[in-house]
Structures are given as C-alpha cells and as structure tokens.
C-alpha cells in the first residue's frame, strides 16, 4: 500500500519561517485509490506519468500503486510537495473519495 502526501507551504514574513499547509492524502491499495484532505480536488487522478526508468506512460488504470509511486514526477515546479511512503497496513484515512481502477 502506497501513501502519497501532498502539501504546500507559506512564508511568514514576520517569523521568517515556512508554515506547511496540507493539501491531500492519497492511498493506493492494490487497484483502489482513495484521496482525502482539504484540497483533494486539486489532485488530478486521471493524470498520466512517464516512468523515467522505462519511458512508459503510466496511468492509474495501469496499476494504482505503481502510478502513485510516480506522482512526484508530475509535480516538478516546486509549489506542491509530494511525499511517497510505503505503509504496511490499512490506516484510518477519513476517506472522502474512492476511485477504483478495476472497473
């Protein structure tokens, strides 16, 4: 199971510190994708991503976990931070949307 955490940050001019702001949490579990968070709609689940190792275009329907691992390659300009991690077991996710690639 793959967890992808999307965040952004704002600079506080008074404290000169960055404040992290959550966007969305995505879980790819087998062929199913769940996404939740305050701005989950910002994340386009229909995006194709070029796998840099194989040069193959990967979509969610081609394997949700593989696609989820590649998501950082879709966000290259720096304003959305994308953190990918492998999680061992189902976590309570506060699920807002479910998308199945099996259909």
């Amino acid at each position, binding site marked *: 199971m793959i967890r992808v*955490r999307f*965040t952004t*940050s*704002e*600079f506080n*001019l008074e404290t*000169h*510190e*960055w404040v*992290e702001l959550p966007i969305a949490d995505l879980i790819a579990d087998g062929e199913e994708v769940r996404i939740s968070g305050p*701005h989950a*709609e*910002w*994340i*386009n689940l229909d*995006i*194709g*991503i*070029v*796998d*840099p*190792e194989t*040069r193959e*275009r990967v979509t969610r329907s081609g394997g949700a976990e593989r696609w989820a691992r590649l998501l*950082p*390659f*879709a*966000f*290259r*300009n*720096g*304003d*959305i*931070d*994308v*953190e*990918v991690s492998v999680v061992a077991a189902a976590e309570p996710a506060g699920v807002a949307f479910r998308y199945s690639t099996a259909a």
Partner: protein
Amino acid sequence: MAIDAQIAAVRAAQGALAIERSMLNAAFAGPPAPTSSPGVNATKRLALSDGATVFHKPFSGVHVANALAFGQTDETPPLHDAVGWRVAVVLGEPWQSLLSPCVLREHAGEDGALSLQASGWPGDLASTLSPEWCSPAAFFDSLIAQQDRHADNWRWDGSRLTLIDHGYAFARPGDILNHTDLLVARRSHGAAALLEAERQALERLLGDAGLMGIASLLLPDRAQALRERAERMLARGEVLRPGEF
C-alpha cells in the same frame, strides 16, 4: 555546460521588464522551504524580500532519467523554463499574461531557473471550457511543443489561467508527448483554426531570421523545430495536432 551560449543569451535578454528586474535583484528572505520530495529537479521554494514566492530549479538538480525520457538533456529543463517565458514576452499579449515570469538566477551558488508563483490552484478544468483562456494557451503550447501540459501544470484562480513549468517543451519531431490537455480541448471544440492575432504573431516571429531573438536561446535543432512548427501552423492556418512536434 553544452548550453553555455544559450544561458548567456537568456541572461542578456532578461531584465527589461519590471517583474524580471524584481526577480533578479530582490534578496532572498530566509531559507528555502523544507521539502520531502527533493528527487525531482531539486526545485526549492523561496521567498523574496518583496514578499513574492518563487521556485528555483537548479541546472545541477535536473532528474536526468526523467529528462532523458522526454528527449530533453540533463541541462535543458531549467533553460526551457526561462525560454518559455521569453517566447511569451516576444509574442506579447495575450500570451505574456498567460505565463508565470521566469528568469535565470543563482541561488546558494547554483545557477537555475527562478519562476514566480502563480495565483490560483491546480487541477481545475474550468479553463479548458473557456475560449478566452484555452485558445491562447493551446496556441502557445502548440508553438513551443509543450510535452506535459496537464491540469497540475497550470493554475486557475477563478478568473485567470496561468501556465507553469516549461521544462519539458521545445520538443523535436519524434519526442514523446505526455499531456497537452489545453491543445486537445481547443481542437475538440472545433477551434483549431488560427485567430488573426495568432497568424500575425507567427508572421512576426518568422519575419525575423533569428525568430525575434528566440533562436539564439535554444539548441540549434530545437530552434529549427520551433521555426518549422510556426511555418506549419501558418501554412495550414491552424494549431498543430497533439504530439506534432
């Protein structure tokens, strides 16, 4: 670097606009934002002393395998970010207002592309339904051979579209296409035909042997591909087909 001449040409071209001077001269305020995903282009989020947020994509931080997969080199993505903006500047409006300004500038001893944060949010398809925004964006993406324009590579703030990330552009015939969603949208709406302002912009570009200075900013094969796309667009009177680089 193999693109030293192009970098020097971009540096010589930038700085005429107030926004560019601000991005070139304002001090960096504080450290870059912490990142949990430094592996893709090592782009840093930074604040400028005037309050602007910018993104620095260093030449040394290009994810080489990803760049090569798109037919880019290990150096071209930051260059192409800056050249995308330069194309918008020479074309003028409405294209200049469509792009997030970008200059080449050092940060922490690393040369790279510095892009201004765009207003709005990603993932919104509203602009694909708006001829006012979709048409000029599709024309621009067709001309510069944008390879990866999906809804997370633009920002929409409810009334305005801004195109970001031109690292994977200026493709050559045969290079891969991942997304060109605005071009697809324009063509699917039956609006492939060039508008008069677009025809005039292409005529201005092709009327100058150096493509209004753009040819010197690109590697020769990519400049030639740009010239040939502009010629094809004019000859056919329409934006190109997706993936037609």
